[in-house]
């Protein structure tokens, strides 16, 4: 259950890095908003993904 939750967070975070760029392309978002969302998505990805992905070190 926890793993599924963190997977969902990871996918939302990954989407936050790429979807705002598409919205910027469509002139819906400003570049500063894109940069902020990408940074938030990055932080989210690196917090949530280690919980479920791959092998432990």
């Amino acid at each position, binding site marked *: 259950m926890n793993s599924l939750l963190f997977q969902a967070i990871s996918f939302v975070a990954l989407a936050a890095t790429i979807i705002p760029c598409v919205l*910027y392309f469509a002139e819906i978002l400003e*570049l500063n908003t894109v940069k902020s969302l990408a940074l938030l998505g990055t932080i989210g990805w690196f917090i949530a993904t280690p919980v479920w992905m791959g*092998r432990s070190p």
Partner: protein
Amino acid sequence: MDDQQSQSGGEFEREPVPERALLGAGKFWGMYAGEHTAGTEFMIGPLFLAAGASLRDLMLGLLLGNALAVLTWRYLVTPIAISKRLTLYYQLERIAGDSLVKLYNVVNGVLFCFLAGAMVTVSASAVGIPFGIFYQTPSETFALGAPSFTLLVVAVGAVMAIVAAAGYKTVAYVANIAAPWMIAIFAACGIVSLVQMDANSVTALSDGKFWSDAIAFVQAKEGVKQFGFWQIVIFAWLCNGAMHFGMADLSIFRFARHASSGWAPSIGMFLGHYMAWIAAAFLLAAQIKLSQDHSANPGALAWGALGWTGILCVIIAGWTTANPTIYRAGLAFQGVLPKRSLAATTLAAGMVATMAGAFPNLSAKLLDFVGTYGTVLGPMGAVIVVDHYLMNRFGLRDEYATRTGLAINFAVLIAWLLPVAVGLYMIFWQGLFAAYAVIPCWIACGMIYLVLSKALQAPVAQ
């Protein structure tokens, strides 16, 4: 089946991989996706623009070249890998002899260090942005950058070398986690750059003026250059020549349960060497439009598109690819100096990489370097192909060094060094584009090996 497993620590290094250790295709797809979306892609993409490639040639040339690279992995490397299930090094040792493999290891290790050096430079370019330290290429090939940048390279290189020596597994783990994110960030950089160039309409994209304007700007500053369709095809095909034509990836595909795993490099080629290169090239085109600056500084380019996320991507992409490269170089050196610990040889490799990274022109000439790398290491793959498919057909003995106890099989030594010497002469003294030399050297090496074996092989008892 990560590097740690496949290249060190008794993971079937001197025996065929057994049935129980074979892996499904998924592992290979994941590994190639991460390994070929690297820090150097930030460097290589802009170099196409700086070299004057047209957008149409770039799109179509990379498509064809990458397809040829995938086919080479699938139909040249994978069949031998799953037939013998041995590492490149052990196969070479059986054919060429123990001492010759040590020489190959040293050459391999030194070239790995130079490659890692370029990644250290790329990472340092990003680390320097918040501190106002900028990567600039001096006019002379072997000249250092600004003193502050050189110090930064030393610091970044030292950290990378220590981490590679002490914590390789952690880096491999971070690399796995970072791979999907890095791919997304490369794509994001490309999309943002297009908008920065006002190329976010079908008309602007099909017109391609954003690209031709950038080329015109660079050529007004640096003079007219040409980088045509076939040059792009050959570069995309052979920039990993050491891995496929050179058979380095035998060490990976020996774990493949089915030959279909040989299609896995396609994900690395079409994400890393297609999408990421084109996206990175767009970064430079956007920088030229926004600030009339055509310097291909990876950190500054990524900062311009995505700010702190871009900086993080360049640092992580450089770090996660420099570390395994330094680690592989350490392994290669340890093969020659078995009494030294792996940590010591990895630190030594890190020092060499750091010194190489202090010369910014190395990364600025990455297109030439990777071609030279394939020219030097690729031909040994021809020896393996000829030994596997042709020796018995010509009445000769395969794996001759093992059968005779030779330390150096001179047929292999001459077959390797002769075409490589000619290739290097053509590259460095005649100005040949380095990637053009890979296939001629490969074919010449295979033919010379066959002819010399016919002349030199003595009868061997069954």
